[in-house]
């Protein structure tokens, strides 16, 4: 659930879970709807970091959406109107997370989109290709492996979906991210339900595999009003004595574990932090993760609020890791991942390897709304030390890696391999 959770945990909230509603839940009264609508609109009006609202006439937006909200048939449609209103800002980190996402897990089992098949599917060479298979998942049990092309989900072809996203003429990273999220939404569903994938293996042979979606066990953590999120972290010492750590979210239970891993592998010749699929988390953790790699004070960048600013300042703590550092990224490395990667890149402390990130980098708050939904709204922007705005741009790799399906089928990880080569090159040059 590592890299997919990142994109999905909250994307699910805003997309897939909108489709679910707890059975028997009472709808919002007209008065409560007005209250919720007003609160959502006002939070943006009062707290958006940009008083020009990204060029949007926010008062006109209210006039446009108030009647739609009042006329919406049912809560799902109402929350959809709110999401559409926030979408007018054309920025990340403005979202409505519906109440169904917060149902107690036991109550929700099988009634919300909590079932997964353990596959990460990304655009590779223009096709939807499995890039990761979670150990123990139904995908693995069915023999699906990285490099397999998924052409249909439940009989529906993916090619038109890819084409629809292409027509939006987005940045390549955003195009890949949207395809990834859309495929993800099709793969997920109520736990226990089944999903049929039409797959192309080596050559042109095709087969259909039917997978059972399962609720993934594991450590979960709920921070404030965010939904409970599953934590995933992996550390190992790679061949060539290179330290490696991968984690899926920037949340506090992982902070000490990440630092401990870096300490325990301080004798390695280089270090790799794998942020592929890491959808972000607590902003302050960016400087917490960066700290062990600095021997002098530094700043990863600055976020600007409507009133004031905050530096992502790093203060050295004891003996740092002085060896070369590589950060692995892809289109699903978002938010805090981009803060960390972008800052380390500009400071010259790390080489960034992989594919451009999604460019969704606005620090935000998540607040409970009357009726149980949550509002996520951006309250700041973020600029790198040189003043580059990462929202809508993302982090561009120093070493871009064009992943090929054949490499995945051969059991290789080209992005990781490129990072290992970069570290080997740096250490041999020294």
């Amino acid at each position, binding site marked *: 659930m590592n890299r997919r959770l990142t994109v999905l945990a909250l994307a699910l909230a805003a997309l897939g879970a909108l489709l679910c509603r707890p059975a028997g839940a009472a709808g919002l009264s007209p008065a409560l709807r007005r209250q919720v609508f007003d609160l959502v609109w006002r939070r943006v009006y009062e707290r958006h970091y940009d008083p*020009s609202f990204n060029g949007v006439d926010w008062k006109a937006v209210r006039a446009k959406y108030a009647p739609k909200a009042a006329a919406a048939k049912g809560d799902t449609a109402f929350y959809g109107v709110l999401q559409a209103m*926030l979408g007018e800002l054309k920025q990340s980190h403005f979202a409505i997370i519906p109440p169904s996402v917060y149902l107690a897990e036991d109550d929700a089992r099988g009634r919300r989109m909590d079932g997964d098949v353990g596959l990460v599917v990304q655009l590779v060479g223009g096709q939807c290709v499995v890039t990761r298979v979670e150990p123990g998942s139904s995908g693995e049990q069915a023999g699906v492996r990285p490099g397999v092309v998924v052409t249909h989900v439940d009989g529906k072809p993916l090619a038109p979906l890819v084409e629809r996203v292409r027509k939006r003429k987005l940045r390549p990273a955003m195009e890949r991210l949207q395809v990834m999220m859309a495929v993800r939404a099709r793969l997920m569903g109520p736990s226990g339900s089944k999903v049929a994938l039409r797959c192309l293996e080596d050559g042109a042979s095709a087969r259909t595999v039917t997978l059972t979606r399962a609720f993934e066990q594991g450590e979960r953590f709920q921070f404030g009003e965010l939904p409970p999120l599953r934590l995933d972290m992996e550390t190992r010492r790679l061949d060539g004595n290179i330290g490696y750590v991968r984690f899926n979210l920037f949340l506090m239970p992982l902070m000490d574990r990440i630092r401990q891993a870096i300490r325990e592998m301080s004798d390695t010749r280089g270090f790799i932090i794998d942020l592929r699929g890491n959808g972000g*988390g607590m902003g*302050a953790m960016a400087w917490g993760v960066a700290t062990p790699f600095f021997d002098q004070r530094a700043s990863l960048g600055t976020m600007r609020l409507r009133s*004031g600013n905050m530096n992502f*300042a790093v203060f050295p703590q004891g003996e740092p890791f002085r060896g070369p550092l590589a950060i692995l990224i892809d289109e699903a490395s978002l938010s805090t991942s981009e803060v960390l990667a972008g800052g380390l890149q500009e400071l010259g402390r790390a080489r960034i390897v992989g594919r451009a990130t999604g460019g969704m980098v606005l620090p935000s708050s998540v607040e409970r709304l009357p009726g149980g939904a949550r509002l996520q709204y951006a309250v700041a922007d973020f600029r790198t030390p040189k003043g580059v705005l990462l929202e809508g741009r993302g982090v561009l790799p120093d070493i871009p890696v064009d992943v090929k399906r054949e490499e995945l089928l051969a059991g290789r990880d080209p992005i990781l391999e490129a990072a290992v080569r970069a570290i080997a090159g740096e250490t041999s040059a020294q």
Partner: protein
Amino acid sequence: MRRWIVLAAALLVLPAAGAVAQKRPAAKKPAVKRPAATKPAPKLPAITPQELIDKHIEATGGREAYEKLTSTVMKGTLEVKAQGLSGTIEIYQKAPDKFLTVQSIGGVGEMRQGVDGETAWAKDPFTGVRTLEGVELATQRRAARFNAILHASELYDKMEITGQAMLDGRPQYVLKLTPKEGKPIVQWVDGKTFLITKTEMTTQGPQGEMTVVMRLMDYRPVDGVKVPFKTVGTMGGIVELTITVTDVKNNVPIEDSLFAKPAS
């Protein structure tokens, strides 16, 4: 007050939600105009800044009551209600100039900040331990001064009453205190009770600059000195937190070592 900036940063989350960034519009429209606040002008008697401070001291217990205190331990709860976060806060003060705050918030961890009489320091789960310098050091040392209100004229280079304002329908004096280092602190002092009702300051330091506004309420006497038992603060206009004091003890022995900068 640097601790607020770390707390604010900690409470901001960056996981990407469902709304996906799209192409930005080419041009930005001008900012939405906001109507200017119109407040009726209160009519309070003219008063000098020091007279106002003296009235505040008197209203909260009197100089003699303050001077009987040598240490204070304050404990309470801390809540960021809108974001579903809560925790505890402890404040230790010892005359003449030692100070420690300990904030612990679920999902964030423990944040400490102290002054041992000379050195000001901070520790949090993200930054680790660091020594404060410059404006931050000066600000913290002012905060560490025990019974600081009795020494306002020493702590601030300039004290002025900049005007009068209404707050919750009550007339207030607006007192501006400008230190030698750092930005001014503005305090609203109720024109009848002479209690401080609101404080506005700007934190400054290597971690940024942020406006912190605090509303002080529910004053209760403890050992003859009135203490606000409830504080509602807004950091950077985005994070609203409520501190509720649950226990105040004065003149309790506190080891000096409590205020020392941690090794790590």
